[in-house]
């Protein structure tokens, strides 16, 4: 039997099933695949998707960049200085596992009904996983490399920048990858709660109209965005961690 990629076969089978069930069932919440694709094309042509997508991406990018900056700094501080880890550790773990959307009403009351609240939700979703992974990565930097650097006169800043950060990069990138996925979720959830701009808003509106085809069309776009963001991060990951020997590279 020829080695065909199982994933593709599976997706193809799923697409066929979607089409068949959709046609047979004939319900508003499960339109056939072709209907959804046609609707998607129409929405793209009509400009609704593009505008909302742009809004969503702006929210995502700004929120993610803030998460990255906060996450890296906090994570490195926690990894390098025991006292910082002692002070912040349990709070970071707690906030990581807690349902982040529960803070949305708070942001809403603090930042109003606008982009700021959505971005705050994105940060809330993404930052903690980045902190945890960065802290763990920083702690795992081989002590002898730090010692070597100090023996050659490296200042604290040089140790952090030239030794700890590059050494921790592979594991940090794993956290960043997880963070991107969570950021996309935060973006959508935030936009659905604070229905002002973006893809989340269209989904909610379409749902209110009982427009199943539009909901699924936007859902397709959302999934593509999510997968695309993760793929982008993986590409950056591969570039940054080119030096890691093949045997120890985990491809998850």
């Amino acid at each position, binding site marked *: 039997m020829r080695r065909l990629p199982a994933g593709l076969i599976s997706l193809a089978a799923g697409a066929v099933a979607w089409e068949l069930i959709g046609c047979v069932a004939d319900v508003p919440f499960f339109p056939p695949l072709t209907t959804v694709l046609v609707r998607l094309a129409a929405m793209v042509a009509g400009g609704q998707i593009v505008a909302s997508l742009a809004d969503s991406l702006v929210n995502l990018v700004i929120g993610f960049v803030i998460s990255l900056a906060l996450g890296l700094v906090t994570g490195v501080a926690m990894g390098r200085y025991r006292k910082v880890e002692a002070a912040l550790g349990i709070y970071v773990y707690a906030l990581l596992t807690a349902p982040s959307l529960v803070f949305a009403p708070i942001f809403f009351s603090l930042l109003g009904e606008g982009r700021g609240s959505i971005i705050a939700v994105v940060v809330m979703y993404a930052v903690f996983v980045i902190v945890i992974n960065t802290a763990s990565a920083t702690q795992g930097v081989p002590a002898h490399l730090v010692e070597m650097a100090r023996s*050659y006169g490296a200042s604290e800043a040089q140790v952090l920048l030239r*030794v700890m950060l590059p050494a921790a990069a592979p594991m940090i990138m794993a956290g960043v990858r997880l963070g991107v996925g969570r950021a996309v979720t935060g973006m959508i959830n935030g936009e659905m709660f604070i229905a002002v701009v973006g893809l989340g808003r269209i989904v909610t509106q379409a749902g209110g109209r009982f427009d199943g085809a539009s909901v699924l069309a936007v859902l397709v776009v959302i999934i593509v965005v999510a997968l695309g963001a993760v793929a982008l991060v993986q590409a950056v990951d591969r570039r940054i961690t080119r030096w890691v*020997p093949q045997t120890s590279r985990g491809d998850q």
Partner: protein
Amino acid sequence: MIEIRGLSKSFVGQDGATVDALRGVDLDVGDNEFVTVLGPSGCGKTTLLKAIAGLAPWNEGDIVIDGAPVRGPGSDRAVVFQNFALLPWATVLDNVAFGLKMRGVARAEREERARSLIAMVGLSGFEAKRPGELSGGMQQRVGIARALAVQPRVLLMDEPFGAVDEQTRRLLQEELLSIWEEHRLTVVFITHSMEEAVLLGDRVVLMSARPGRIAEIVPVSQKRPRSPDVGAAERAEITGYLWNRLREMHQERR
């Protein structure tokens, strides 16, 4: 060059008991002298080296180098590490230039110096490779080049050939001898191999454990330049003596 007086360091071990890593160590190392430090594990030889390097604190005593007391790492000393401690993501060139970069030397100058040292240790052509692509022996050559690049007055070597196979070790010993002939530095070289200690050193500092202290200093008066093939018998005598002393120490411990 190096004066050590009454150096003592102790710490509380895992079981709560106090361990004397070093107690009352006195040692003088002269200019351009090659001193090897030998002893069983736990005798404090690595602690001693790290203290001289300024990487580890101590409880009592002084270490003075060329009149200046040791307060931390300094540009007058450079360390070669047992497990190489190369930055795995950096090229050979950047690794060799690392110490210079930390001292703020401009790029053009430090790359030029790095290249000449890479040539000296016989790794020309490997400047763009990463440590993962090199053998153990080559990696340690990079480590030695890095140490020499900062032009230290004292070279501190912590069992530098312990992590490579014997054939590579012999090659590295010969290369180190010839490098030293050319650039006479003060060297403190830690090893657990008696043959190596006698081959390389002007004096062998024999240490014993619990507490860590200097048991004896054995001079090796063989003429330089040394070579593994010449004067082996003479060295074997000293090696035999050292082994007897070490065996006594091991037996005492039982």
